[in-house]
């Protein structure tokens, strides 16, 4: 039962890679946006907030389609990326990571923002009076104090990325070895009469993967907790 075949290993490896990249991509941007939403007041704030939530509100297929329109080889940004940097994201695992990170983005932002809102500004102030500039205070006070939210956001994003399907299959297609992550492989198996057996194995694989991440995050959180 536990010996994996090549197809499963391939999907697992890819899912892991995509999820890790997705988290790495959305974490800094998510933190930045969460910080802006938590601390800044500007006219278009509610707009930005809405934009962040878009991937939740719209069905994944629509997001996938939008990504295809924007980042596909013929897409506005995709074309530019290809012409200037010779990078192509569409139909590659990079695209899968992007779509996963886009889908996970609102979860990341919300979690981090919640933690940022809970930080007592007095502590940051004290950091300033001790001689650390805004950026250093950010690094040494704000960031560590927001750790629970960052961990929570990262684990949510990771789990969401492991499970991401709709946007991915729409944006980067279902290319074995390139974009066929666990959920997409699962989808394929479900299309085959009698594929349920194999599907179950993939479900268990997904769960093991996410559970490991959960345990890791719990341990990390416990270490960080005074």
């Amino acid at each position, binding site marked *: 039962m536990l010996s994996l075949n090549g197809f499963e290993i391939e999907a697992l490896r890819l899912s892991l890679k995509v999820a890790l990249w997705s988290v790495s991509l959305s974490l800094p941007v998510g933190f930045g946006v969460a910080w802006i939403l938590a601390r800044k007041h500007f006219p278009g704030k509610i707009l930005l907030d809405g934009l962040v939530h878009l991937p939740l509100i719209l069905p994944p297929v629509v997001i996938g389609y939008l990504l295809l329109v924007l980042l596909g080889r013929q897409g506005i940004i995709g074309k530019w990326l290809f012409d200037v940097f010779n990078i192509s994201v569409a139909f590659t695992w990079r695209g899968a990571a992007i779509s996963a990170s886009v889908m996970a983005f609102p979860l990341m932002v919300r979690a981090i923002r919640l933690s940022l809102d809970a930080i007592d500004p007095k*502590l940051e102030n*004290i950091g300033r*009076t001790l001689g650390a500039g805004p950026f250093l205070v950010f690094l040494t006070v704000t960031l560590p104090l927001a750790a629970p939210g960052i961990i929570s956001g990262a684990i949510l994003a990771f789990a969401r990325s492991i499970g991401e399907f709709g946007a991915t299959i729409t944006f980067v297609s279902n290319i074995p070895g390139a974009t066929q992550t666990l959920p997409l492989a699962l989808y394929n198996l479900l299309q085959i009469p009698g594929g349920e057996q194999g599907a179950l194995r993939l479900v268990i694989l997904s769960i093991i993967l996410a559970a490991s991440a959960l345990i890791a995050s719990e341990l990390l959180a416990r270490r960080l907790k005074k």
Partner: protein
Amino acid sequence: MNSTPAFDSNILRVKVKKRIGEFDLDVSFMARQGVTALFGRSGSGKTTLINLITGLSVPDWGRIEIDNRILCDTDKHIFLTPEKRSIGFVSQEGDLFPHLTVKGNIEFACRFGKGTGFHIPIKEVIELLDLGFLLGRWPNTLSGGEKQRTAIARALLSHPRILVMDEPLASLDASHKSQILPYIERLRDEFMLPIIYVSHDMEEVVRLADTMVLLDQGKNSATGLVEEIMSRADLRPLTGRHEASSVINVIVSQQDEFFKLTQLSFFGGKLWIPFVDVPLGTETRMRVRARDVLLSLTRPKGTSILNILPATVKEIITGNGPQAELVLDLGALLIASVTKKSISNMKLEPGTKVYAMIKAAAITHRALGLGGLRSRRN
């Protein structure tokens, strides 16, 4: 000594207005080298003012200068951020970083503090504040006093050009207090570190402070030298009646190693006080509480009182209570608090010649103004 400090020697000049909610702060004062006490009852605006000085809040209008460096000037649109002000700050609540251990909290200050280069070795601070055995602990496991001691250590180690302390010793016990006070005095005297000090404890204020800013409902109802403020009868409601006292400028004139006594001379006489280890000739101020002064019509003999000084009653101030205050002239002015009954018994009136008796023990080290006796720097 001048009651209005000379302009050029001012370390700190503050002239600010700020409205928070329904509270209006409108304060203007100057502070010289040494310790400036902010004194006022709860809600009078002390913390609000401190926040303006440290740069944690922005005045609606005004100007703050330290060492002729403008920290803030609303007219010129200058506003230095807190980290550029080199102010070591101990807040009223301590506010330790919960994600760092005691050691981490202290090291934070060492790492980022970039003041004038004023430097106290970290070891010395840890020892003084008795933090050695706490270094590995997290703030949420500390007792109230331990938290505050850590906060003080942190501020001291941030290499500040000026120290601002908001009721730093309120949660400390007498024993820790008396351990830390001399150190603050040392900062003031040896390191010449100017200090802004918020406190409710008049003993502390008199011991540490040169200048006192009296805050009342957001206004500074008086600013001046501590001795001056303390002896102003009109400020009693704010400074506290039971603390009536006089401050006299003295010079150390003799040391008695055997009986462990120090003699202070002033214009009008000599006084013995418990031994203080300073060179002869040191100038300082001495605070004598009115209730520690006794009177006698004849020179008392065979008493335990070492200090007996001839004086003339200059003025008698009577209030509602059983006590009256007498202003005595013995070269310097000395305030004595006696019962009205004694005044009646002794038939005291302005012009009466009396002997003022002051117990040596009454002038403890703690009650000495300007702290551990130092040479005045002006």
